[in-house]
């Protein structure tokens, strides 16, 4: 992770944006605070960014900002949940998640008509993982439970989902964003999913 940092100066040179834009986007919460990594260098303290994330984000902002207000962009990028809920028929009609995922949810929470945003994200993440083919349906049930029980505890802060398998037994972890994790030799990290990027994808789907 450490080698994928870019200094502020290099970032501005690479993307052609100005200091003012960078600071304005930070003020508008388009760039999260925890991407500003302060490290000491031989010229004193410098600010670094996670390279891939920041380049992708700036690319999006630059492309979208002419047609979208900065506040709307901030909503799009924010990992917090908006107060929307969706009807079952809308979800099926707009093909947001597959029917298999929806069925799995129904098995777990009983019959429903309206999905809160929180639940929707859980199903969306489930769907994404099922589509990769790396997760079985039974494991999906555990995932749904983890997300339903614990995701709201992060209270809008960014978090990552870890999918770990050891000797055929699967387990899921929710950890706060960008933290480092080390596993024992026998355990395999099947997938690390940044929940906030799933939310971003979901929001683009919905709008």
């Amino acid at each position, binding site marked *: 992770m450490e080698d994928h940092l870019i200094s502020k*100066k290099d970032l501005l*040179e690479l993307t052609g944006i*100005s*200091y*003012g*834009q*960078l*600071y*304005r986007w*930070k*003020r508008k919460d388009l760039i999260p605070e925890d991407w500003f990594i302060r490290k000491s260098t031989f010229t*004193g*303290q410098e600010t670094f960014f996670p390279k891939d994330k920041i380049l992708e984000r700036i690319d999006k902002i630059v492309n979208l900002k002419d047609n979208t207000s900065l506040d709307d962009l901030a909503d799009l990028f924010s990992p917090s949940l908006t107060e929307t809920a969706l009807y079952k028929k809308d979800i099926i009609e707009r093909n947001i998640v597959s029917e298999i995922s929806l069925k799995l949810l129904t098995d777990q929470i009983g019959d429903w008509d309206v999905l809160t945003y929180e639940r929707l994200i859980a199903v969306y993440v489930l769907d994404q993982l099922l589509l990769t083919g790396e997760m079985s349906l039974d494991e999906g049930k555990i995932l749904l439970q983890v997300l339903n029980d614990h995701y709201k505890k992060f209270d809008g802060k960014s978090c990552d989902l870890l999918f770990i398998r050891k000797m055929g037994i699967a387990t899921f972890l929710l950890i706060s964003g960008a933290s480092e994790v080390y596993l024992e030799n026998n355990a395999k990290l099947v997938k690390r999913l940044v929940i906030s990027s799933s939310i971003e994808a979901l929001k683009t789907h919905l709008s």
Partner: protein
Amino acid sequence: MNTQDRQNIRITGTASAAGGTYNQIRIMGEGKLTGDIDCITFGCTGTADITGQFVSQIFKVHGTTVVNGTVSNDKTTVNGEMTVHGDATIRDGKINGQLNVKNNLFGQELKLYGMVQVDGDCEIDRLYGKGAFDVKGLLNAGQMDVQLYWPSQANEIGGEHITVKKAQGISGMMKSLFDMFKIQPDARLTARSIEGDDIVLENTTAQFVRGNNVTIGPGCHIEHVEYRNTYNQASDAIVNHYSQV
């Protein structure tokens, strides 16, 4: 909750009240509010001590107010001293006295006619006035136009338009305050780095100044200047290195 359902509190003398949702809170004397407060207007002439979180629309202090939790105000006037131990969000603020924030300060517009002290970061869209500031973290201001009347510090300053000048003349509202002290200290801004689009500085000591258009005025002492478009330097400013990038 409707305004009709909200009750008023008025404290004259010394008293304490419980937290809750109120319409108007007025404290004349010494008041202690225990718990979280959500009110429409808050006025304090004297001393107020709030132990929880605080939310209000119109907020006026003529005395001392201490909030132990976070503060979120729409319109804020501080004529005395206000201390916030959590984060403070002040949409439209006017500081005629002193504002201390032990965590981060967020706001849209801040008129500074006194002193603002922030232990964390400070994010304000428009910051202007005459006074002084002390920000331990990053001062992120879209438009910043401040005349300094007192030594000011910030670890980093970032923004679009940054103008810091030495106070013009002695006339100013801080004069009476400073007259109490025999010697007026040098109203100098000290910062590690200042980054922005258009930067105009006077009487500033900084390690790095980086921007598109940079003007280094009299009394500055800058280690490195990096600019993209234009660069001006006053004759008595000390700049060790400057380069166009």
